[in-house]
């Protein structure tokens, strides 16, 4: 399982990359593996929306499962990855790169400190695998 060191994570399997006051959000390698082939992506928020940490921001579907993506942060949506709707398989092939989902302008950058560090997330995933 790949867990890049420069990201922060949630217990619901989202990752966040913070650059200045902009957070980029996606789902983790663990999540894409658990879902298997992703066939559908839909953002349920629009650019300009104010969202709070925990809000449902996107839906993913594979052949066997469905997952809600929740925002790890609070702020304003500034970009949505338009490619994902037509190429949802990117979530499987490049979860931390081409499959970014949303960019959010953070209203409180200190909020990200509460998120899991890479090693904490790895440990958390260990406890879940059977």
């Amino acid at each position, binding site marked *: 399982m790949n867990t890049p060191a420069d990201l922060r994570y949630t217990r619901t399997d989202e990752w966040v990359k913070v650059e200045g006051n902009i957070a980029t959000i996606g789902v983790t390698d663990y999540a894409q593996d658990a879902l298997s*082939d992703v*066939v*559908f992506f839909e953002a349920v928020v629009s650019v300009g929306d104010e969202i709070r940490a925990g809000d449902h921001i996107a839906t993913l*579907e594979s*052949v*066997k499962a469905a997952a809600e993506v929740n925002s790890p942060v609070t702020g304003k949506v500034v970009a949505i990855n338009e490619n994902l709707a037509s190429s*949802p*398989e990117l979530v499987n092939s490049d979860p931390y790169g081409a499959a970014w989902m949303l960019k959010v302008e953070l209203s409180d950058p200190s909020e990200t400190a509460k998120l899991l560090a890479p090693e904490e997330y790895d440990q958390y995933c260990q406890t879940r695998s*059977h």
Partner: protein
Amino acid sequence: MPEPTIFELSSPGRTGVTFPTSDVPESPLPVDFLRSDLPLPEMSEVDVVRHFTRLSKLNYSIDQGIYPLGSCTMKYNPRVNEMVARFSGFTQTHPLQPLETVQGNLYLMYLLQEWLKEIGGFAGVTLQPAAGAQGELTGILIMRAYHVDRGDTRRTRILIPDSAHGTNPASSAMSGYEVINIPTDPRGNIDLNFLQSVCDDRVAGIMITNPNTLGLFDQNIIPVIQAVHRVGGLVYGDGANLNALLGIARPGDLGIDIMHFNLHKTFATPHGGGGPGSGPVGVAASLVDFLPGPIVSMVEEGDEDIPPFFGFVQPAKSIGRVKSFFGHFGMMVRAFTYIAMHGPEGLRKVAENAVLNANYLLARLRNTYHVPYDRICMHEFVLEGRWKEVPEIIALDISKRLMDYGIHPPTNYFPLIVHDALMIEPTETESKDSLDYFVDAMEKIAFEARTHPEWLKEAPHQTPVRRVDEVKAAKELVLCCQPIDRE
């Protein structure tokens, strides 16, 4: 060669049936409303009969062999049921005919209601729901109406064990409730401590399946029901597994307030390739007034000379109608016939043999497959479809390989609480020979998994088509004979 579709078989100018010319003068057609094109296929009767006969041969069915699809109760469908359901007195009656002309139908429905009350231990039954899932919705709406009627509007939650069918939480959500998931304890029962910790006056009720989807009779059933009743909640029983309890125990006696019956699972009406089902709902005395109407009732008692007269009544506080007319009457005729042919002892034998068959399979497979909740089961049980020493093999591979042995696979990946679940329900209509054949196949597959894992990975080999590409189906979405983007 794949079977062509009816559109590919179409040949302009053909038709499979002709109708007489009109015996009355023609009237002008409404020109503003006429359609310009009717893009239906054109086939002869022979074309049609051969096409659907060929299609039928691509299916596996109970008529061919064991169909151990857990939770679905694929038992033999007696042919006599099909025969009687086709009597013209049943098939040719219109649902809005005068009551005097349908006393046979009403008598049959009345008796079936009475019998289901007796079998389930309930005070009232509606035959209206079209399927188990609709029975659940009906039951939860009854629960809601009951609380609202008492002015008790604080209840917003339904408790549902994590082993439940997906229809349970979906039906609760459709009825406006929040779902609280209840974990399963290591014995495969509802986790009683957790349950007690969430029982309060916000709980509208609980939905339980007993035997549960692990095939186990919940050993905590009585304390679970008492805990929910104590805080004013109601208990919904998912009757999907009633096959194991016929004549063994009555859900109503255990304290269950509402339950749906699956006529197809319990009383052998055919599954029809995915319906029609039929999901009558039974309720305790305090809930009879909330049943959907209309309900068949004996409106005039008969005497020695005059038969009783049956009609419809509307329950006083009914949640309303859940379906057109009176439910799946054709399925009621079949279930009625099945119950009539069994009688009380016969029904108990159904449950006994179903449970015997499942335990026999469990005993014989226990050494080859891991059983996560291993104790005497009821009518079904759950195995893990994987082995530590061959990590590449998953439950799906085992299922697909079973097809090469001419057996329909068990239910895969359900219940969700068992990894790589294989949920096996042989039903009472399988003989020992048929069970032994199944065990042999399962043992061979376990062996092959170690020696020739690719045989499993690439299975099935002997079926009309090989493994299908589900990802392509979901991404490219071709849902009818022309591509979806046909404009």
